[in-house]
């Protein structure tokens, strides 16, 4: 599987996920003992010194034996262990057969790219120095100049893409990766220096001062030189890339523009690394220098640490406490804002209870009497007629009660006569009354 280019679209989260999935489905793993690594290293170094990258089986056994003697000093059953080691390395694709002869004859083997990378990581002294950086940047500049010449000759977008994209991806990219790889090497070296300074002080407190200062100075000088080289070189490289970018823009060569932009980003990253490392190392440099000057030189026998430890544990010394100034923060009084006037709480002045007013009372009996009088005047001939007419205006439930009052009023206002046989006649469907006739004045009764 090709490695992921961080700047390529496949480096997006979904692309990363699919790449990881593909990798995990193959379940790769590496298991290497020290002897295995040393064996690979022997092959790597022998390959470099002899100029041959392939080894016969006999050579493999021989190199394994040499590695085993150095690492384990145990020459017993070397051939058998070599057989297992070669099988193990082949299974892990660190060593591959390159002759293709199969059964016909004994094979030839070479380190795979993976095996060579692992060994070079452990062996390589590739840290960035001013010399290597200058060499690399000069080569880079020369490559960019060639690209610029070819791009200048291109007349179409396709021609310019051909002239720019390939060289930038291969030559320029490889060179810049070389710089970045050496930067990582220098980072590792700095980390080692920090550990080394600590170890030197632990081993020989006062005696380590000089060696610590030498380490600090050498790294500081390296970083200073690197920063100087990068500052001057990166400007030139960026200028060349800007010229290329201008040509690409004129011809609308989008692929070339993209490749140029990525190269420019990479150069920016390299320059930023240099500035960042110099800053952090400068801080560390100052800190360690102060430590050496204020602590180590003033306390060459580490007596201070011992006394302070005894003090803390209560083994010796009187307990004490430090005095410090302790003035409270000044009080800032708030501006007084006048509170708004609030109306006093009062009872409402208006009387809640309205005084009673006189209203004309309606006498229901008088109303009834008027009504009866009107019916009589209208010529009603019997009590049933009067009662029926008066109670017809009333609600049904009041008619029976009103009938008695009608009879009383009729008896008072008019002459009444009843038969010997007093007939009971219905007024409506609800009740009946005893019938009286009402004779007219001066005439026969109705």
């Amino acid at each position, binding site marked *: 599987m090709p490695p992921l280019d961080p700047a390529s679209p496949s480096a997006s989260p979904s692309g990363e996920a699919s790449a990881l999935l593909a990798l995990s489905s193959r379940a790769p793993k590496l298991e290497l003992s020290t002897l295995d690594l040393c064996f690979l290293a022997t092959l790597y170094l022998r390959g470099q010194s002899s100029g041959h990258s392939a080894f016969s089986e006999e050579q493999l056994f021989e190199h394994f034996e040499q590695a085993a003697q150095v690492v384990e000093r145990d020459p017993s059953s070397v051939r058998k262990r070599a057989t297992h080691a070669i099988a193990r390395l082949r299974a892990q694709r660190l060593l591959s057969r390159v002759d293709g002869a199969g059964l016909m004859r004994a094979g030839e083997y070479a380190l795979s790219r993976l095996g060579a990378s692992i060994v070079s990581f452990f062996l390589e002294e590739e840290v960035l120095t001013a010399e290597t950086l200058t060499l690399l940047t000069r080569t880079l500049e020369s490559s960019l100049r060639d690209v610029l010449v070819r791009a200048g000759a291109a007349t179409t977008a396709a021609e310019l893409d051909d002239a720019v994209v390939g060289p930038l991806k291969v030559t320029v990219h490889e060179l810049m990766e070389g710089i970045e790889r050496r930067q990582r090497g220098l980072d590792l070296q700095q980390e080692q220096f920090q550990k080394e*300074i600590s170890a030197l002080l632990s081993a020989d*407190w006062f005696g380590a001062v000089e060696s610590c200062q030498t380490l600090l100075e050498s790294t500081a000088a390296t970083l200073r030189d690197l920063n100087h080289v990068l500052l001057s070189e990166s400007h030139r490289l960026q200028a060349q890339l800007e010229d290329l970018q201008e040509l690409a823009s004129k011809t609308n060569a989008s692929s070339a523009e993209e490749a140029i932009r990525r190269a420019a980003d990479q150069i920016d990253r390299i320059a930023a690394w240099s500035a960042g490392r110099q800053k952090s190392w400068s801080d*560390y440099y100052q*800190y360690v220098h102060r430590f050496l000057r204020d602590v180590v030189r003033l306390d060459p026998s580490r007596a201070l640490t011992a006394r302070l430890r005894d003090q*803390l544990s209560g083994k010796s010394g*009187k307990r*004490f406490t430090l005095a410090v*100034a302790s*003035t409270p923060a000044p009080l800032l009084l708030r501006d007084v804002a006048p509170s708004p006037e609030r109306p006093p709480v009062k009872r409402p002045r208006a009387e809640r209870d309205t005084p009673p007013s006189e209203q004309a009372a309606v006498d229901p009996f008088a109303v009834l009497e008027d009504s009866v009088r009107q019916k009589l005047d209208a010529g009603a001939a019997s009590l049933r007629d009067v009662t029926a007419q008066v109670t017809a205006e009333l609600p049904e439930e009041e008619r029976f009660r009103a009938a008695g009052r009608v009879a009383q009023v009729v008896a008072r206002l008019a002459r009444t006569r009843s038969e010997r046989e007093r007939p009971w006649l219905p007024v409506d469907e609800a009740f009946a009354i005893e019938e009286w006739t009402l004779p007219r004045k001066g005439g026969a009764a109705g």
Partner: protein
Amino acid sequence: MSMETNQTFEDLAQVVEHELFPDVDLALRRGRHIDREDAAWYGFLTDAQAMLERFYRRYGAELVQRTDGFFFLLPSGDKLGRRHLSPSEMLVGQGLTLLYLEPATVEQGGITSRDQLLSQLSASMGTEQLMLAFNAKKKRLDERVAQEMVRSGVSQAVRRLAGLGFVDLLPEERIRLRSSLMRFAEPVRGSGADLEALTRLVASGEVALTESDDDAPAGDDAFSPSAEADSSPDAAPAPLPGWSEGSEWGASFDQPEGDVDPALRTLPKPETPDSDSDSDSDSDSDSDSDSDSDSDSDSDSESDERGSEEPSS
């Protein structure tokens, strides 16, 4: 900003008018130690040192500069308030100083962590003694609760020391150690006897002796995780010196002296009228409940936590 302001001050008025003066002045009065990490402030103090020394002397305070590369203000009179660090702050400060002196810390550029601090304290004092130091009020100690009290107490003390400029607090509980921590090692510094340096520092008012553990009343340094962390060690404002005929009168008489060097007299014990009958008993009855219950009685010891205040007169 560069450390040196490269400014020469003709008189005090120029110093006071400088833009950095208010911040530096307030920081010094609040007990802040200013070292080379505070590049601008340190440069300003270096440039204006002579004038500021005279300025603060009028307040009865000394602007002290150490060869380790830091300044601090030491009030000796009664015009500016001062306080003494609490026992817990002293323990943690000494532990941090030990870490500052360790070669292993040099590898990290002077950065350590709370875990390393706890480990240092535990290794130097012993776990039992460390737990006792932070749980002095407790009659019965539940190990889990006691350890929690130590952790929270140490964190609280570190925060207060950060407020005084002894350390910087970084993310993820990391701590940057500063050169002003060397104040904690000052009394044991030098080639002579410890007592000599200590006597000198006590006489200058920079250090005060405290009671020994045996004499110390219970609860001098009990921690309360629930106690409000106060990174600004503000003390009560120092009252203005008033007319005190009684105290002034007779001040010129010789004081009765014992055999003890006056410089080595210890600070008076804090008043703890009912330190034995505190409410600790009920909290300890259920030590598993939570740390809140354990700390219910610690509010009265908050003043101890902040160290002893020394208001003037």
